């Protein structure tokens, strides 16, 4: 009895201490909020995790590119604009858009004059070839975009040559010539990767995540505390550059890691942080709070991403077009929107709305904002002669609820669905192996760059591989393949001229129901009260544009 009383006393005391500390913490936050509103900077950005690397030729995650795209300018970059305008490639260190040869394989580019890095060194044309060599040597995650398309890059990667034969440059005139192995329309997008950002020749050929090299962008990285924080200071030489379309930052940035989304939201809502990490969905309770208390500084922004269920079009039951149409007809997309905590915009087309080629025509199998027509779907399943077939639905554990919902839809329309939910680390290698024979499953595609070609590699039968296969539905449609091949050669700068042809492919994809598109992910844009919310640009490619952060 005595020990029980003692335990209760200790528990009460402990609870009291914790409450007191929490109250002190809360007060501290409020205090800092008040102080922050009077301060001129730096602006504090909270991130759910530390970028995989701050070295531009290594970093591949969205956390890394968000931080580095304004530090390491390449020859081209994206317009600092919201919405579709933000998907436009604009010249950065290049003086203009490239001259592309008639065959589409030779890009001639001229560097702007008088460019300097953040350490004061002169930017040279030969630094471009050096940066590409460095990205390949350091095994940048997407180096295939260089090795597969630039002549001689593959030989360099394999150690067969010490330079890339397809890139030549003249430091005196600032001219760079890039020869491709074959015409590749999105090559301008490839040149806009932060990994193609110029760094001084002679930068060590080793990853420099904690002491990143100088760049020629508006910011420079400083004070990296691995895993915890780093700063981005305004590049002291930037004022002289004055590159059109790239804003001059008004405030330094301090990035700190806060892995708990709830705490992260509290910091942004309370004012101790200025920008919430857009890669993390706001916790449901925080969404309510943001809508209630911070409606003027909270918005939901579209992301160039598509969420879908793939359907194996080569094997029963989904080798039947009617069976696939039945699945799409029965989809209750608003349910998935709720499963994604509201951060999903229902849709039926494979290309997200901000990507060129996304049709404006109505969906072929019902309103995507409707709850699905199960009765009609059942009828289609019966017509297809596949009723009662067993279907295994694959998914990774973070999207288990999606898989549960999809499996239940399949059951409801006449199939016998079972689930295969596995760890996210092994999920894509598993379903991308033809040996798995995955019949159906959850998938998403986040753009490498805002170009329809990037999305349509997932529907290109010519790219089916035994392992690492991206065409999960195993679509083998000669019309699509011919269209992708022809449109894939159109340079990114001329994309709008072929928007109608892409739309035709999109309508065919939706009509044939090759994939059951659920919708497009959205991201939270949440700032503190001291940030000029209206001025903050949300790039559809890299998220919040730090160069546009203005403090009141």
């Amino acid at each position: 009895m005595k020990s029980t009383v003692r335990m209760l006393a200790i528990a009460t005391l402990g609870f009291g201490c914790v409450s007191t500390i929490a109250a002190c913490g809360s007060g501290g936050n409020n205090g800092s909020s008040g102080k922050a509103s009077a301060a001129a900077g730096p602006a504090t950005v909270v991130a759910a995790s530390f970028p995989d690397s701050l070295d531009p030729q290594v970093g591949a995650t969205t956390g890394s590119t968000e931080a580095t795209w304004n530090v390491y300018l390449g020859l081209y970059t994206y317009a600092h604009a919201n919405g579709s305008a933000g998907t436009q490639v604009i010249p950065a260190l290049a003086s203009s858009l490239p001259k592309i040869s008639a065959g589409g394989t030779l890009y001639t580019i001229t560097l702007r004059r008088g460019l300097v890095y953040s350490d004061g060194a002169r930017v040279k044309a030969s630094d471009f070839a050096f940066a590409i060599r460095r990205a390949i040597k350091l095994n940048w995650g997407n180096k295939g975009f260089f090795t597969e398309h630039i002549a001689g890059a593959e030989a360099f990667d394999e150690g067969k040559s010490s330079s890339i034969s397809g890139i030549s440059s003249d430091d005196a005139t600032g001219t760079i010539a890039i020869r491709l192995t074959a015409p590749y329309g999105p090559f301008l997008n490839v040149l806009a990767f932060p990994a193609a950002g110029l760094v001084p020749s002679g930068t060590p050929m080793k990853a420099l995540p904690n002491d990143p090299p100088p760049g020629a962008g508006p910011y420079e990285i400083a004070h990296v505390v691995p895993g915890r924080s780093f700063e981005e200071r305004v590049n002291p030489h930037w004022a002289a550059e004055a590159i059109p379309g790239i804003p001059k930052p008004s405030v330094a940035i301090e990035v700190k890691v806060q892995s708990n989304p709830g705490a992260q939201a509290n910091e942004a809502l309370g004012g101790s942080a200025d920008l919430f990490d857009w890669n993390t969905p706001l916790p449901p309770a925080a969404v309510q709070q943001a809508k209630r208390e911070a409606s003027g500084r909270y918005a939901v922004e579209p992301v160039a991403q598509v969420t879908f269920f793939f359907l194996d079009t080569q094997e029963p039951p989904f080798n039947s077009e009617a069976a696939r149409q039945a699945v799409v007809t029965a989809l209750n997309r608003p349910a998935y929107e709720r499963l994604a905590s509201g951060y999903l915009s229902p849709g039926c087309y494979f290309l997200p709305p901000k990507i060129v080629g996304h049709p404006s025509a109505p969906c072929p199998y019902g309103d995507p904002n409707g709850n699905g027509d199960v009765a009609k779907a059942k009828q289609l399943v019966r017509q297809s002669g596949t009723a009662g077939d067993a279907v295994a639905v694959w998914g990774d554990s973070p999207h288990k609820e999606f898989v549960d919902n999809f499996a239940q839809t399949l059951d409801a329309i006449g199939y016998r669905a079972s689930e295969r939910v596995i760890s996210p680390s092994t999920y894509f290698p598993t379903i991308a192996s033809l040996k798995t024979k995955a019949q159906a499953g959850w998938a998403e595609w986040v753009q490498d760059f805002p170009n329809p070609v990037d999305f349509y590699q997932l529907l290109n039968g010519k790219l089916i591989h035994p392992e690492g296969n991206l065409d999960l539905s195993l679509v083998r449609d000669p019309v699509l393949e011919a269209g992708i091949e022809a449109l894939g050669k159109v340079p990114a700068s001329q994309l709008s001229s072929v928007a109608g042809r892409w739309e035709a492919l999109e309508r065919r994809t939706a009509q044939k129901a090759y994939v059951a598109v659920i919708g497009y992910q959205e991201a939270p844009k949440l700032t503190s009260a001291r940030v000029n919310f209206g001025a903050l640009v949300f790039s559809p490619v890299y998220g919040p544009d730090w160069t546009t952060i203005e403090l009141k």
Partner: protein
Amino acid sequence: MEVREHSPPPGRRRHASAWRRLLRQPAAIVAACVLLGIVTLCLLAPVYAREVAHTGPDANHVTATVSVSGRRLDVVSPTGVPIGPTWQGRFLFGADPNGRDVAVRLLYGGRNSLQIAAIATLLTMLLAVIVALLAGWFGGALDALLSRLMDLIWSYPVLLLGVALGVTLAVSGIDLGFTTLKGGSLLLPALIIGVVYVPYMARPLRAQTIELARREFVDAARQQGLSGARIMFGEILPNLSSSVVVFAPLLLANAILLESGLSFLGAGVQAPAPSWGTMISEGTRLMPAAIHLVLAPGLMLLAAVLSANVLAEAARDALDPRGRRLRVRPTAGGLDRGLPDGEPA
């Protein structure tokens, strides 16, 4: 003479007095009632689902609404927060993110958890008794081989071994020769749990077997010409029954806990089938906005495990009133390595 003829045999008399001692413990009665209540409720899950909740355990109602006190409410809000307890037939304990009735899933999840735990416990008991009798009776090379096998299993932390086996077999299933267990089969976690706990029971029982094999009544049986198998199963096994009875509820409690742990980590019951562990796992994502998702299965788990443990303690006291008892108690990683007091290790 008449009295002797009508007296029950010593074993039965011992069990009868143990039963009387058990009934004298109020905690044991309460624990037994709680456990029985949980089992009964779980067995009635289909009736509850059909007659009260009017929905199945896997039926999604994400975009549906429900009338609560005359108001229409979303089962799942547009921001993905499921409704909390309504304290009425539909969504009594609220809904989960897929709009599934938590009370229905709680009962079906309990069925799965208890079913797995019961099968695992029976499997452990069967294998452990066989291993203990063979190793303790025959000794020598067979004892060494079986003991090292037990050491090998014992050397792995139970949860890690369970997760490793569960994750490996969850998708592919396992071919046992005489039958194949598919990835989503409930028998798979039962098999895994049943096997990983064998050493915890087999080792103390083996020690008891060795001790019993040296007793006079076994010598007498030998001299009467009884075969080894008859002595093992006819003479020694009945004398192990007290220990087995004490072990059973303890193993059940630990099996329920391990099943929940495995399911929580995605290595136990596979979706969409519910279990208390998977329900807690799903609920953590929406903490603290929908705390009922963790609270309901958590409390159910607590009640089941606590009552099984109290029952085990009471059974031990009833069967061993003089304190000559097994020092076996549940720990975070499994069962404590206790042996009967004074028994050779």
